[in-house]
């Protein structure tokens, strides 16, 4: 009897938790506020873990019932990660960007790129081609893994060879080396160019960190939602099969 009670409670909870997806699309209308619904969604979701575990009687195997339980756990844990992510990353992203938007930082980067292009008009051709290649081949973001790991696939062409320019290190090292052998007017220009490239590196770091954090902030939903629908199917299968062979 206890098993059926807990099972019914668990099933009702799952259906209600799934209904959030519908409710949030009606932001204004409907009973309660979406904010309240999300809060309840979190608390009831976590309590579902307890209800369903007791319902399982700690009896697991390779079957549709354990699949439903496993999917439910994945959904709940991805949701718990989501709560943590939403409480952590927006603030952290704001801090690393010093309250600017990512657009503003990109704009700063564009300014620097424009400045560099202007400054490069009056330096040696080899310096100009190296720096321009580094600007052209700077990469941020990318596929899922690139975004989540802040992988830097930037390149630079030096002496006709393509090198990795991770964190702009190769470019800056080359400029510093070039600077040590320069003198006079060229030295002044090179110093400015190097400083600009350093500023550019800092902006790129901020952009990559923001992309990584934003990715982490959102990525759980790509599991949470599809797994919820998988769970709904497994729940239907669980209930039908239990009563088929009652």
């Amino acid at each position, binding site marked *: 009897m206890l098993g059926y009670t807990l099972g019914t409670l668990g099933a009702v909870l799952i259906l209600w938790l799934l209904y959030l997806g519908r409710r949030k699309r009606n932001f204004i209308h409907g009973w309660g506020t979406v904010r309240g619904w999300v809060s309840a969604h979190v608390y009831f979701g976590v309590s579902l873990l307890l209800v369903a575990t007791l319902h399982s009687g700690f009896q697991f195997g390779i079957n549709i019932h354990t699949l439903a339980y496993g999917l439910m756990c994945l959904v709940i844990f991805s949701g718990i990660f989501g709560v943590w992510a939403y409480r952590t990353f927006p603030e952290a992203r704001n801090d690393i960007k010093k309250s600017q938007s990512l657009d503003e930082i990109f704009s700063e980067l564009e300014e620097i790129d*424009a400045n560099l292009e202007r400054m490069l008009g009056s330096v040696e051709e080899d310096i100009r081609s190296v720096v321009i290649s580094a600007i052209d081949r700077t990469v941020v973001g990318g596929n899922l893994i690139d975004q989540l790991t802040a992988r830097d696939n930037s390149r630079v062409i030096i002496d006709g060879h393509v090198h990795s320019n991770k964190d702009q290190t190769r470019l800056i090292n080359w400029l510093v080396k070039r600077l040590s052998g320069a003198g006079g007017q060229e030295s002044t220009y090179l110093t400015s160019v190097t400083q600009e490239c350093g500023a550019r590196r800092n902006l790129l770091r901020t952009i990559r960190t923001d992309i990584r954090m934003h990715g982490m902030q959102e990525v759980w939903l790509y599991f949470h939602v599809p797994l919820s629908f998988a769970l709904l199917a497994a729940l239907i299968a669980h209930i039908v099969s239990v009563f088929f062979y009652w």
Partner: protein
Amino acid sequence: MRLLIRYMESRGAGKATWESRYEGDSATIGRGTDQTISLPGRRVPLEHSKLTLKAGQLRLAAMGDHRFSVNDAVSKNSVVAIGDEVIVAGHTLHFLPAEQDHDCVIEVELESGEVESLRDRFKTRLWQLAVPERSISWILFLAILAIGVVIPATGFFVGMSALRESPLPDDSLWLAGGLHQTHAFMGDECSYCHTVPFVPAKDEDCLYCHLSVNHHFDTTTLGRDYKAGDRCADCHHEHTDSESLVLRDQGLCTTCHADLGAMGFGFSDLEPVTDFYDDHPPFKYSVLAWSDDEGWESKRLHPWDAEAADRSNLRFPHDVHMVAQGIESPQGTRVMACKNCHETEVSGVTMRPVTMERHCADCHQLTFDASAPDRVVPHGSVSDLMRTLREYYAWQFLDGQAAPVIETTPDQIRPARRPGDARRKESIEALLARRVGGADAAISRAGREFIEDRVAIAATNLFERQTCVVCHSIALTGDVDLPWQVLPVALVDDWFPLTKFSHERHKNMRCEGCHEASSSTAATDILMPDIGTCRACHGGERTRALLQSDCTTCHNFHLDNQAAMGELILIEELEAERRGVEGRPPKPVAEESRSQ
């Protein structure tokens, strides 16, 4: 500082121009509408820089990490002269000579053409990856529904065994837990027990095999309402991967046994019970009592009842047999142990009966004549005994070996025969003389007298002085042929017939821990333990200090003395057969497993 700000913006082929004026200490540049020089575009920060006039010098200072360029030189803080060109976030500011009463004219060339933002070249957000979330959700939902329900359920229409043989998912996915080892022979055939879909497994499905399982009470008079559960499955949970199929929760029993009267069983003489340690009635012994009319009858008595005694009609002082230094036996001194007489059955549950032949006869030999110590009378029947005596002494008479009558009294030790002991032959010679010189009748009379004398002496010794009376209660009948009667003997087979006590499981304990035999002086002593003895080790169902013991630790639910649960089904099937209705089909796998 007084500024004239002239905005210029390309619109198609023409150009739009408008002006604004400023008078104050410092002019601000940025996207914000509160800025002195407001520059459009999402790349422009809300507050970018500040323009001040000090000692005739215009100074532009960027805020935060922002920068600008003055005549192509990047700067954060710079003096701006008339004629300079300043670029702020893509917009060009020309500082022109003063006009009218202004200190400076700033011509702002607004950059309206949107160049491709650097940001647009890269995928910087997950949503730009266009993960087909909705499609994945639908695919997962439909795939699990198909594998988990739809395909296995088609087996109901096309035949489960056909589905199981195919590579498609079948109802094995639905198996919540393994079968108990006693049911494992059923394999995957769920329909053995789950005969009708969406209907709980019925008792009939269990009783199909378990026909002989007994009821707990008399269902013909009390009905079949078990209160705590109506179905076999309420107490016997299958598919739990547990070693036991029996639900041992004592709450199932105490539903009724806490108060039988309230549950409609008020006529029962069973006392209320809720827990072995805290609330269990004292033990009652099942004692046998003899009555001439009814024979042996069992009575359940408390230890303190006056009638509570072992009335076996035997004499057996345990203390005499169990002295530590041992007792004299024909084989010498013998130290007795409990197990010499009390042996467990192979099952380890019950004890083998104690019998004269196996356990007593080694010492208690039924000899009757000191001159013939190898001859014994049979045990059991008085008439057989008397016949044996007559036969022996008749043979002795005919064999001419009439031995002297050795009178003994109970105080005397029977003299043993010693080799070379001279036999007294006077009486034999006298008899022979009589036989030679007299008639047959005289011999016959003399023989009968001889035999009857000897038989009477031997039997009196046996029954009243030395042998039978040592263990048995003897009554005089007054009958000439069978003057003695051995009172009927019965040993209690099971003192606690409602429990299942296993001696095997208690073999690490001393016998005397429960049975105080060495201080028992009489056979009437009941040497069974009381509930306190058990409670020294056994606690209630949830005790933490003792052995956890529930009802089923000692009691069976299905009682041997009740009708079989399957009887009704048998009757139904027989009736169906008589009516010509086809009965339930046989269960082939069970047959197969038997043949294996």
